[in-house]
């Protein structure tokens, strides 16, 4: 079951209600169909007025957990027609009186989102390459030691390549990311492309690393890498490499992981490794 909080007020407590089991199941299915409508609970880009819904799971072991959803997230109704339709549907599930002015504000905002252009980068499903380079999904001892951990970031881990330089997308290829305030999926992916990551799988005998780029717009980028057993792993900055998201759940799909402020899922890329380069993809 889920508690739904309509995040709309500034001074008064937000209205909230609980979905019944059938409504909860429908919500899970809607999120699986349109994951772009999920966002971070602590999204600092949202201002006054309608800010979507804060969804909180009320019990463990439900369908939400089996679907790989975080236990708490925001539904903002952006991202596509299905997203705002789901936001309208959620508004209709309420069992509390919110008043006509509030309903008008919320519905107006939802309809406004429907008219917005789609996200700049359309995320694709995680690719499956015929020959993969998969490291352990539990043993991170190579990364999590005093001589490596502080100096290698998410991009180093994604490339499985230690540089001790806090690698940056594009640096190897002569490209410099824009200032943080201008960081987007598009310009970060430009850096990834300049480092020669590919949108298609390479053929054997070389093996494919598969990585996923996400961005906290106007702030920072982050990468995941597919590891063994269908799990994605990552290394948040200089902190230890890990196999869980911000909710402590295994990451079976970055789209559904609790990514904190990294709300934009930009896409997947492949890097060939093997002969001559060891098991890592060269970054700088």
């Amino acid at each position: 079951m889920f508690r739904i909080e309509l995040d709309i007020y500034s001074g008064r407590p937000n209205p909230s209600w609980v979905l019944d089991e059938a409504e909860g199941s429908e919500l899970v299915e809607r999120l699986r169909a349109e994951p772009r409508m999920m966002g971070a609970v602590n999204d600092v880009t949202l201002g006054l007025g309608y800010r979507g819904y804060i969804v909180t799971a009320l019990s463990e072991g439900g369908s939400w957990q089996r679907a790989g959803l975080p236990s708490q997230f925001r539904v903002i109704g952006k991202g596509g027609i299905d997203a705002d339709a789901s936001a309208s549907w959620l508004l209709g599930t309420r069992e509390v009186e919110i008043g006509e002015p509030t309903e008008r504000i919320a519905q107006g905002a939802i309809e406004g989102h429907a008219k917005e252009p789609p996200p700049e980068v359309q995320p694709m499903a995680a690719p499956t390459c015929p020959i993969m380079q998969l490291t352990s999904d539990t043993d991170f001892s190579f990364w999590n030691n005093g001589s490596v951990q502080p100096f290698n970031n998410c991009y180093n881990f994604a490339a499985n390549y230690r540089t001790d330089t806090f690698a940056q997308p594009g640096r190897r290829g002569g490209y410099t990311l824009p200032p943080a305030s201008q960081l987007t999926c598009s310009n970060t992916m430009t850096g990834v492309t300049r480092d020669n990551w590919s949108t298609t799988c390479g053929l054997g005998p070389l093996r494919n690393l598969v990585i996923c780029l996400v961005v906290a717009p106007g702030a920072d980028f982050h990468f995941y890498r597919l590891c063994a057993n269908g799990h994605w792993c990552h290394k948040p900055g200089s902190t230890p490499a890990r196999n869980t998201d911000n909710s402590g759940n295994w990451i079976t799909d970055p789209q559904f992981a609790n990514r904190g402020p990294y709300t934009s899922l930009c896409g997947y890329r492949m890097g060939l490794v093997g002969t001559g380069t060891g098991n890592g993809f060269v970054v700088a």
Partner: protein
Amino acid sequence: MLLALAVWMAGCVVMMADAVQVEVDVYSGRPNPRWTLSGDASAEVMRRLRALAREDGRAAQPDGLGYRGMLVHVNPAPPDLCATIRVAAGFACCEPSSTARDSGDASRSSASVCRRDVNRDVERWLIASGDRELDAALRETLKRALEP
């Protein structure tokens, strides 16, 4: 009198020798913002940290993506504190030593040397010390992170 003066001077020498850097542990790809405190500010943060009450047992500290707290780097590492202290979520804890990291046990939740930062006062002070170093978006992120 002379003994008291000697002890006071020794304390001043210890404090003056501490070069303190403050780091906002928030990013994953980009380097974290980091700045060096002045001599007076270094002495002040060390005084504040030493004044915190010790906490027995473990203290949960934030990890993962997003804001993970303020890091205080002290060089050289003082005998009564440690080289890197994470101040977050109401606690100031020693970061795992390089020995612990080399063994693969880099879990922050296993930090055993913690002090309680009541009302997150030291954390707020550290954030304020870098007000000129932080862009508007990050200041807003930190402001929200400090909300109860």
